[in-house]
């Protein structure tokens, strides 16, 4: 249990200067090692003495993991690039605006200055029972404390719960999914590139992991192809406080419209609704070829929440998700073109 705060357990601090060295150190130390990017997730765990690694591999000195590099195929973002850098980068803002929008609403400015894209993607779930050190399923125990009759589960999952009901908390991930981003992982066997949506692991597969990283693996870069560059984007995050809060839910869409305003191509993702980020493929298929208007958005919203199973205190997430999905389709149109347009814009005041 978390009884001691602000006094971290002793560990060996390793500070590699290259990605290869970092990966080698992680491989050498296996499950004893903890990889630290910006430290915003790591220090919570360490100060609460819930995670007690023997070795901490600090990536802050690995310059090659930083920076945004545009190329013919798109753009490559180093995993250690800060969220502020991404939010302000002209190429990202111009062609991949959904990512700039998403990372600019992560937590607070100070956190965005320190937090990295790799860390935001790979952070652990924010369930307070789990992070409080309770012996829940995700911590290797045999119970989900949030999914009990009196468990505090207002922020938890309405989809994909399998013993654990915690949700994935990242804001950047839905944007990366709709941009068809590829995550580059260095493993002992070499480089592995996976689609952003396949990077995450649900509790039904492995309840103690949130992503595919195994001991010794290192997320080095995020590659965004130019397939969706310049498309119509929408991102919206709903949270309790408009600064410094995790999402109650967020939504991202990338849409290519025909001249007549119908949807030629679309990618749609939602996070904080399920233990792993959700790409809504069925909804994408259903709305393709239809006009990006309120009627289509309404249909998409209803379809998106089919099969949702609320917990004791989070039934509000169903209308929230329905409306966010609707807005993610209607919201890409200029207001005058969206017949029966929305009353509210991004900000979430009327989303639920």
């Amino acid at each position, binding site marked *: 249990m978390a009884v001691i705060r602000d006094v971290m357990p002793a560990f060996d601090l390793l500070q590699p200067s290259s990605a290869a060295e970092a990966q080698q150190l992680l491989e050498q130390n296996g499950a004893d090692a903890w990889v630290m990017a910006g430290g915003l997730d790591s220090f919570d765990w360490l100060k609460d003495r819930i995670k007690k690694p023997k070795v901490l591999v600090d990536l802050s000195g690995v310059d090659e993991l930083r920076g945004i590099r545009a190329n013919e195929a798109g753009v490559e973002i180093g995993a250690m690039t800060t969220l502020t850098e991404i939010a302000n980068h002209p190429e990202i803002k111009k062609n991949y605006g959904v990512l700039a929008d998403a990372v600019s609403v992560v937590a607070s400015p100070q956190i965005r200055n320190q937090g990295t894209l790799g860390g935001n993607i790979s952070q652990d779930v924010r369930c307070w029972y789990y992070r409080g050190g309770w*012996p829940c399923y995700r911590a290797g125990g045999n119970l989900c404390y949030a999914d009990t009759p009196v468990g505090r589960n207002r922020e938890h999952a309405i989809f994909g719960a399998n013993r654990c009901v915690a949700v994935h908390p990242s804001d950047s991930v839905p944007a990366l999914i709709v941009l068809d981003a590829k995550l580059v992982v260095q493993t002992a066997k070499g480089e592995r590139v996976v689609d952003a949506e396949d990077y995450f692991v649900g509790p039904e*597969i492995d309840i103690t992991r949130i992503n595919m990283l195994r001991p010794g693996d290192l997320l080095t870069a995020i590659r965004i192809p130019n397939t969706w560059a310049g498309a119509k984007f929408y991102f919206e995050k709903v949270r309790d406080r408009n600064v410094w809060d995790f999402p109650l839910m967020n939504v991202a869409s990338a849409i290519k419209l025909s001249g007549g305003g119908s949807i030629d191509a679309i990618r749609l993702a939602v996070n904080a609704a399920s233990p792993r980020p959700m790409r809504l493929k069925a909804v994408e298929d259903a709305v393709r070829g239809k006009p990006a208007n309120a009627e289509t958005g309404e249909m998409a919203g209803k379809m998106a929440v089919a099969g949702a199973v609320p917990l004791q205190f989070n039934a509000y997430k169903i209308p929230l998700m329905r409306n966010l999905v609707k807005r993610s389709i209607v919201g890409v149109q200029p207001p005058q073109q969206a017949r029966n347009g929305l009353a509210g814009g991004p900000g979430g005041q009327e989303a639920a």
Partner: protein
Amino acid sequence: MSFLQWATSPWGQSVPIHIAWTLIWIAVIAGFCFMVMHALYLIIVKPPKRFAEQKSEAAAAGVPDRVPRHTLVARLFHWVMASSMLALLITAFLPKIGVQFNWVVYHWIAGLVLTASVLFHIVHASFFLDFWSIWPDKTDLVDAKNRVLRFFGKDAPPPSKFAKYPLENKLYHGAVMIAGLAVIVTGLFMMKRVETGILVRNPYLFSDMTWGMMYVLHGLAGVGFIALTIMHVYMGLRPEKLPITKSMIFGWMSRDFYLEEHDTARWAVKSTPPDTNRGLAANDGD
């Protein structure tokens, strides 16, 4: 090394949460050790045949070529139970050794199949088969004592032939029964902890300590089944045991094997009217 994993409950109580997963490997090693030791014993010591060739013509007279041993229903039960047990072992332990998949649903479904098959077996064996044939009797115990004495070179009368089941079979059945009941009872309660769509979930049914003990018992019986399964498969594949294994597939064993290994007085094979498909009615005890 600890055999249990402990955690601190929200009330500060130290509670067991499950077995240490290293027990999986200990069970595997135990099963393979049994296999190797038994095989080496047979290869190196070359023990004499258990029973002298003494086929009584009188006893053999009424025995058909194919002696029925397991009814179709009993065989079906055995293979359904074996399949569900294999599914349970795979879904329980592969994820623990790194092969990740969506195992929970398959696990509890296999558990329900096992439970149903065992319930059926209890009724079937109690009312339709010779219930006592699978339990050790006085003769088994005397013979066991004599076999041990003879193994150590002491003077002891030769053991009598087996009834329908050798003592080893009966002891194995007993071990499987205890472990099986443990996993079934604890498993049914554990279904109250997960969403199944069948039971209303109630994680507060027991205290953390009781739940923890239940998980531990489930795990211990589970890893026990790893060793038991390895032993069972090994024995089933041994050349001298193949007639018994085949009888669990085809339902009968040969007249020669029956007479060689079994006491016709303890396991009587009775003729039945020819219009019943079975031809003969064995004293089924499956």
